[in-house]
């Protein structure tokens, strides 16, 4: 693409090249620009409408892939990534900051804890119904198709964790690291 190094594109557009400086070029180690330096969010009717139509289907596909991890193509990780894509799309269409305000870190933390908790519940439940950690074959004695359902639950737990982590990483890259954290890092240097 037409980067700043391309001699053809930089002729006579000094004002444009100034704005295309890499975010980390000041050497401060920040991975993203603070809100004051970022270009303002400009809404686009086309993108917003498409995202509004597409988002429920993408989330449904993510859940579908999550639930089909045990029996066919798919799995918790892939489903979680697809589900997190919904949040990324919403961020692109409606601005990252409003979406990040709505989905706070505490909510993502609860999501992560729920996923890990599901996994650990199934895992340690294996000790109760069988002999080992994640001994899902033992769940057959608890209920019909217990093996299948417990594997699906493990996949859903993984998927929820992956979705939460990817959403959190996206918000971290999009809105910047908390200033308190950056200050703490500078103190240790």
């Amino acid at each position, binding site marked *: 693409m*037409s980067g700043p190094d391309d001699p*053809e*594109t930089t002729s006579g*557009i000094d004002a444009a090249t100034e*704005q295309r400086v890499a975010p980390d070029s000041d050497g401060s180690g920040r991975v993203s620009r603070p809100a004051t330096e970022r270009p303002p969010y400009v809404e686009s009717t086309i*993108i917003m409408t*498409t995202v509004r139509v597409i988002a429920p289907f993408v989330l449904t596909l993510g859940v579908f892939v999550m639930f089909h991890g045990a029996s066919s193509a798919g799995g918790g990780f892939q489903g979680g990534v697809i589900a997190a894509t919904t949040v990324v799309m919403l961020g692109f269409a409606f601005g990252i900051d409003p979406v990040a305000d709505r989905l706070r870190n505490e909510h993502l933390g609860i999501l992560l804890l729920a996923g890990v908790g599901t996994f650990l519940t199934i895992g340690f439940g294996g000790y109760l119904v069988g002999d080992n950690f994640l001994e899902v074959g033992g769940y057959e004695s608890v209920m019909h198709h217990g093996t299948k359902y417990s594997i699906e639950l493990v996949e859903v737990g993984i998927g929820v964790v992956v979705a939460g982590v990817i959403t959190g990483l996206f918000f971290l890259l999009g809105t910047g690291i908390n200033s308190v954290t950056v200050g703490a890092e500078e103190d240790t240097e």
Partner: protein
Amino acid sequence: MTPLEYLAAALVVGGTFFGFVATVGLLRLPGLYARLHAASKSDTLGSVLAVAGVAVVLGVSTESLKLGFLLVFLLLTSPTAAHAIARSGKEQNVEPAGDVDAPWIDEEEGDA
């Protein structure tokens, strides 16, 4: 071969052709906008034609219904993604590359 298979083969070959056109355009054209122009339109048509060919082969079934959904979503999302990229390029003041002295390019509007 049945006529339906001929149709499917024609669709897939057409899809491959447009995918090839998109690839050549992406590799050879100068600058963001020209490449986006080549890639988005031809690639959308190419993938849609190829998916339609597969759907014709599978006939009336659940799979072709899924492929129909895929076709609709491709037609919706691919141009929107291209629109978003071009838009953010303009907001970041990315200039069109290539023959910038061409008489039909309005310099003042380009610098605005």
